[in-house]
């Protein structure tokens, strides 16, 4: 009997390649001889007009094959890059050109594109391109954007790209004003970035003989890049193949597309008739990819004596950088997911999405949720403090109860659908997280530590995460005559173990051996209809599609086998790739043979195909392929949910702060997590670990330090402080809850982003608890926080 693989910590199949150094990342792809390398001339100014670009010194450089500027671009390439996700509220959306036309709006914006023999020579050439700029005043930071003393774009008044207001449950300002208790909070959260260890990269080869473009790119959406490249280069979709090879991490930044280089590389490859490669270096990744997180928040809250929310009125100012290619996804998520597991009473939220002369903002793991969680959880802590109540109990009285699902919030979510939670058990989760950190005895522990001169503190933060958003994903399952099962799904992989978990699902549903399944992702030649890997959607969307496609293949296998074995389909089972009659295992056919039978052939080229020729199979009285049938043992299906699933979680952290140096040390980090039914707990756990570490980075170490002229001061791994092992907790206590989603056949919800969402909130709470800085309201209202900032905060509170 085959053991179900669903729920098993199956070791990853992709590791065999990756551990041998046989991974194939974009920069590893061998596209044959004649490869040229690109480098980009980037703006050194945050805001400037381009007066002149002088190429005289560069065109004669040996090894330089081409230099492109805006003036060389024609047709759709000369138009601004697409605004991927338009929204009616985005009244002043702006996108950059593939190469700056006459104005640059952030340090790092692409101005010219050099193609040379190798990257070294290309960089030499970049240094020889002389660009004359007329420098304009830079708008840096939300305060400057709001003040609008200077404008990023002349035709965008107030630097305001969008303003969106949503409300539900009544007139929030009036309810707050009438509430027995009221508080207001001003909060601040800074920029960070995904920072995958592999930056962006694109290789293109134009095949004149086939009139066809092949493009390898490190993306989270192969099909998106394919469509964009086809449009921009004036090609038919059928002329463009996009292949996403191994991707060295994404975390969101690679969902934005097309990047200028994703267009310029194929553009140059076609023009020059030679393959061209662009591989972003680390400095470029800092200044020309994307950031996220930066927001200023104002919260007005009214509540009763128990801390129950009556009204919540939130205003957000979101820094979206110089352009808005990814629309309003991030602030929409903040403003809707802010609610977490709570019932807000009357809720109003307004966000202002603002232009600044800095790198663009597109989703980074969590995608606006960390900011929302921060606003809500700081509010919960403030309420508890105001009422002198236990912080967990204040949260408890506000939780949505298990019998209230599906829970309708009355708001519109990022997918344009109603914000409706599908399932969950938040009170049980709260019990679990409290147990993990001995919540109820922590006060005593804290007092004992204080007696020894030590400061320890405990923080708690809760979130709900919309995962698995549509519109759809598809899958194709093909059983070959060898019995091997080839599976393709269109979304991409950046380390989530898709080749393993999707194979688990196929093996379970089809009944084949796990080792016979091979999964391909992100190759438009294999699955041209797909959306992408983001929003913790791969397991839900492609997982469901793979499951459904495997079911179709299975149904066909059973039908053919029933015919061949002269048995009823109901009496058949498929185990380890063999179809047999239940109770009579000797009456059997393996899937490979069924594949042979499924495809009547004219030509025989091996033993298997000999058995499949039309003289061997089928009824001579009927057509070889029946009217309602197709040759081959395949299943293809798509999964398109009516709305998103909602995963949830609660984190708690215990920290110690040094009374003298203000160093912040993590003593314990605990996670309770509910992503519905687990496919592979080992992989889910790994996702949580990684998210927590990224969250530690975002809360305590990482920030984008811009100066007032728009220069990024810490654009290196020396100064942008991603955690090493020494900065992450030694051990993360994880407990799971599984409330299956009713929305998909497997009951799964997404897990990819969860670990990072509550970090800013939970660390702010714990540090504050350790410091006891509470006399005049919440002390920690700006994150991330460094020892230096904690020290300054102590000075401000006269509590050194």
């Amino acid at each position, binding site marked *: 009997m085959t053991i179900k693989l669903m729920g098993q910590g199956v070791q990853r199949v*992709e590791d065999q390649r*990756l551990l041998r150094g046989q*991974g194939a990342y974009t920069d590893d792809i061998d596209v044959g001889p004649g490869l040229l390398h690109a480098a980009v001339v980037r703006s050194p100014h945050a805001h400037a007009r381009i007066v002149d670009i002088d190429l005289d010194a560069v065109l004669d450089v040996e090894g330089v094959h081409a230099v492109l500027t805006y003036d060389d671009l024609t047709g759709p390439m000369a138009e601004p890059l697409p605004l991927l996700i338009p929204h009616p509220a985005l009244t002043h959306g702006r996108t950059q050109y593939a190469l700056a036309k006459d104005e640059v709006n952030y340090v790092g914006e692409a101005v010219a594109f050099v193609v040379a023999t190798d990257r070294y020579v290309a960089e030499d050439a970049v240094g020889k391109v002389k660009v004359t700029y007329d420098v304009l005043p830079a708008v840096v930071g939300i305060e400057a954007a709001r003040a609008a003393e200077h404008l990023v774009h002349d035709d965008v008044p107030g630097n305001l790209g969008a303003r969106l207001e949503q409300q539900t449950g009544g007139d929030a300002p009036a309810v707050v004003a009438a509430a027995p208790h009221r508080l207001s909070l001003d909060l601040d959260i800074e920029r960070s970035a995904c920072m995958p260890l592999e930056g962006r990269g694109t290789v293109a080869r134009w095949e004149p003989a086939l009139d066809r473009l092949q493009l390898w790119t490190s993306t989270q959406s192969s099909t998106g890049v394919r469509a964009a490249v086809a449009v921009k280069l004036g090609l038919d979709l059928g002329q463009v193949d996009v292949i996403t090879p*191994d991707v060295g991490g994404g975390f969101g930044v690679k969902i934005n597309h097309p990047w200028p280089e994703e267009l310029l590389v194929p553009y140059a490859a076609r023009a020059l008739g030679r393959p061209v490669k662009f591989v972003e270096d680390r400095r470029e990744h800092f200044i020309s990819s994307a950031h996220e997180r930066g927001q200023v928040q104002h919260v007005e809250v009214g509540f009763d004596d128990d801390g129950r929310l009556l009204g919540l009125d939130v205003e957000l100012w979101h820094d979206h950088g110089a352009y808005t290619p990814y629309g309003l996804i991030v602030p929409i998520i903040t403003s809707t997911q802010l609610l977490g597991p709570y019932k807000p009473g009357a809720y109003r939220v307004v966000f202002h999405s603002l232009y600044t002369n800095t790198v663009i903002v597109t989703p980074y793991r969590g995608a606006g949720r960390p900011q929302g969680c921060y606003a809500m959880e700081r509010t919960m802590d403030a309420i508890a403090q105001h009422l002198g109540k236990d912080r967990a109990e204040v949260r408890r009285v506000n939780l949505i109860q298990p019998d209230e699902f599906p829970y309708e919030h009355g708001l519109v979510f990022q997918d344009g659908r109603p914000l409706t939670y599908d399932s969950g058990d938040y009170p049980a989760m709260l019990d679990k997280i409290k147990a993990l950190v001995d919540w109820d005895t922590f006060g005593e522990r804290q007092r004992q530590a204080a007696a020894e001169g030590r400061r320890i503190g405990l923080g708690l933060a809760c979130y709900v995460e919309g995962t698995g958003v549509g519109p759809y994903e598809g899958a194709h399952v093909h059983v070959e005559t060898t019995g091997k099962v080839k599976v393709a799904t269109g979304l991409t992989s950046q380390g989530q173990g898709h080749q393993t978990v999707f194979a688990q699902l196929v093996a379970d549903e089809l009944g084949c051996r796990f080792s016979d399944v091979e999964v391909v992702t992100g190759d438009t030649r294999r699955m041209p209809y797909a959306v992408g890997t983001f929003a913790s959607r791969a397991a839900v969307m492609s997982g469901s599609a793979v499951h459904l496609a495997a079911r179709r293949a299975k149904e066909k296998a059973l039908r053919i086998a029933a015919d061949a074995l002269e048995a009823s389909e109901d009496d058949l089972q498929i185990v380890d790739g063999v179809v047999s009659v239940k109770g009579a295992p000797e009456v059997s056919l393996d899937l490979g043979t069924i594949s042979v039978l499924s495809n009547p052939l004219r030509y025989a080229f091996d033993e298997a195909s000999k058995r499949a020729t039309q003289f061997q199979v089928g009824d001579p009285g009927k057509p070889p392929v029946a009217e309602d049938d197709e040759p081959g043992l395949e299943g293809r299906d798509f999964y398109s949910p009516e709305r998103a699933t909602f995963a949830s979680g609660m984190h708690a952290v215990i920290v110690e702060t040094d009374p003298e140096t203000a160093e912040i040390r993590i003593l314990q980090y605990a996670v309770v997590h509910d992503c519905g039914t687990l496919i592979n707990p080992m992989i889910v756990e790994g996702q949580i670990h990684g998210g927590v570490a990224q969250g530690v980075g975002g809360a305590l170490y990482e920030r984008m330090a811009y100066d007032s002229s728009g220069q990024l001061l810490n654009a290196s791994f*020396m100064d942008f402080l991603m955690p090493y092992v020494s900065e992450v907790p030694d051990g993360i206590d994880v407990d799971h809850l599984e409330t299956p989603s009713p929305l998909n056949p497997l009951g799964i919800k997404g897990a990819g982003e969860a670990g990072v969402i509550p970090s800013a909130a939970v660390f702010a709470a714990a540090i504050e608890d350790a410091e006891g800085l509470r006399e005049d309201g919440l002390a920690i209202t700006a994150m991330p926080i460094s020892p230096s900032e904690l020290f300054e905060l102590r000075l401000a509170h006269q509590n050194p």
Partner: protein
Amino acid sequence: MTVSAQTGETGEAVHDVRLRVNGVVHDLRVPARRLLSDALRHDLGLTGTHVGCEHGVCGACTVLVDGRSARACLMFAVAAVEVDITTVEGLTRPDGSLGPVQQAFSECHGLQCGFCTPGFLTTITAGLEENPDPTHEEARDMIGGNLCRCTGYQNIVAAVECAAVLRRGGSRGPGPGGPHASITEAGGPS
């Protein structure tokens, strides 16, 4: 070793260099400024060594130079002569099976995207050579100079400890998923 400089395709002086990588001798002609990381990847086709920052911080490009870990992005190919270089490709056993550190990473789920992994594998290989039986703290210290953005390091530390056992001829921990047996208990299907 280098001999007299000549002029290459782009007019830049080039040097004839002999590199010994994974026991194989390679003769190549490179400009002086060619980083060892680029020479390994693009001149020798050993693309397992990855480049994550090119300023010596992330550790993805770590190789072994005479058995000691070194950043390939902080060395010039022209200066990497007269030494034995080992890359991730050289950690696999002659029969093609995974070496102990590689095996431990597989069993402990010590990698996700896999981009930083070769640098960890080489670093740990050298680290365990020097300290075959690290304490938990020493296992953490051993990987203290390598960045990983995916795993949160938890399972990499477990892999160091597992690899130490495997190197001594031991077998891995209990049940499928190795060190994750406890995880499946906590998180198994309800």
